């Protein structure tokens, strides 16, 4: 699968965004350690972090294919069944990430007001 150009593209789309997010976090930490208090940039971290998380959960489910539909929760009959079930649970639970903690729409309102001043 890793030799499939389309799969590679989806994986690196996520990997590159994640790398940038890691650096954004380090920038925030660097500014905190020089005495600043956490500001609206934490909204950016929440939005990007949860969006990337969901992309990754979606890709994981598709990677394992139809096995991801399995509702089996314990006594897995195969490794595939286990991977699939875990991927499905992660994906489903992961939908909450853009909703809780102030939905990503609310976070966008926060940045619009506090950072962009609109």
């Amino acid at each position, binding site marked *: 699968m890793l030799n499939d150009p389309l799969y590679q593209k989806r994986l690196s789309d996520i990997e590159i965004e994640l790398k*940038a997010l890691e650096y954004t976090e380090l920038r925030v930490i660097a500014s905190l350690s020089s005495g600043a208090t956490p500001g609206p940039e934490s909204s950016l971290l929440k939005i990007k972090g949860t969006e990337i998380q969901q992309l990754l959960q979606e890709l994981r489910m598709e990677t394992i294919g139809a096995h991801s539909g399995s509702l089996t929760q314990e006594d897995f009959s195969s490794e595939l069944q286990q991977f699939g079930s875990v991927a499905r649970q992660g994906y489903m639970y992961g939908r909450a990430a853009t909703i809780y903690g102030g939905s990503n729409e609310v976070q966008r309102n926060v940045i619009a007001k506090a950072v962009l001043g609109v």
Partner: protein
Amino acid sequence: MNFEFNEEQKMLKESMHRWFQDNYSFEQRRIIADSEEGISREHWSTFAELGWLSIPFSEDHGGFGGNVIDIAAMMEEFGKVLLLEPAISSLILFGGLLESGSNKTLAASTIPQIIDGSLLGSLATYEPQARYDLSDIATTANADGDNYILNGQKSIVLGGAHADQFIVSARTSGGQTDEAGISLFVLNRDQVIISTQRMMDGQVVADIVLDSVKVPSANLVSKVDAGYDLLVSTLQTANVALSAESVGIMNVLNQTTIEYTKTRKQFGVPISSFQVLQHRMVDTFMACEQSKSMLYGTLCELTDDTTTDHERAMAVNALRTLIARNGKLIGDEAIQMHGGMGITDELDVGHYVKRLLMINLIFGNGDFYQKRYNQLAYG
């Protein structure tokens, strides 16, 4: 670098910003862009006096001894004003190749002239059939005693319209796309046949024909057949420079768009009060911040001695990929939120967008760099 420029770099950026405020407004820039050469040699001399042209060069050659972070600090400011003068072609490419090449005599005699502003240089390497492939070189250089005879053609040569000298890549051995067998030569302007064209970003570039050009072997930038690695490493620096320029442009576009939506009224209220536009401006804000983070993170990696060549290549490919994607989003949204006037010649917005578009077309587009990243990561 701790994800922030140091005091010296901040001072440099501040002094550039002040100079540009007085001398490089959009209207002042337009006059330069409309001139025949498309650059101001007077400004270039001033940059030399201000010491800007010395930044990428070693102290041995009278330079400031700056690293890739100093270059990025400078390029961010150049991006903010859409600088037309040939920083990439003359300083980073032409000067950078001489600085890292093994021909120290040539470097010692040429680099001081770049620094004092009297000599403009350019790199002529891409050929019409090659697209972005640096190893696809059909131009030939055949040994003839102590000379080489060059034949071939080069296209879209950045800074080529006004360069006094060119570094030209040519094949001294091997097949057309072999990485080995490429050599780099310094040529004078009067040795080549030049035709110029104006690009959408205001740059005047050149197509070049080499018709039995005789070059002494003393003009080899590096050892015979060993030019490819030098090209790759110099292009890596140029790609970071272009990314820094892009970050400068993204900042301006987002700022301009926010200001515009605050003043433009529709249905009796500023359009910035519409949530649908607010959320889109937040997305472009995040795209700019992510790009900036990736740039600064890459600069940290590149200046860390423990980073391997493989990691360096991956970092720069990832950077260029992200900059291409985010540049497109920010450019498209800036035009959309400005309405039709976003692409008029009168407004600066369209010019910033066109430069971002052009950056994504030179040396490689987003797909090209992502494919290279994928090869390094998963290949």
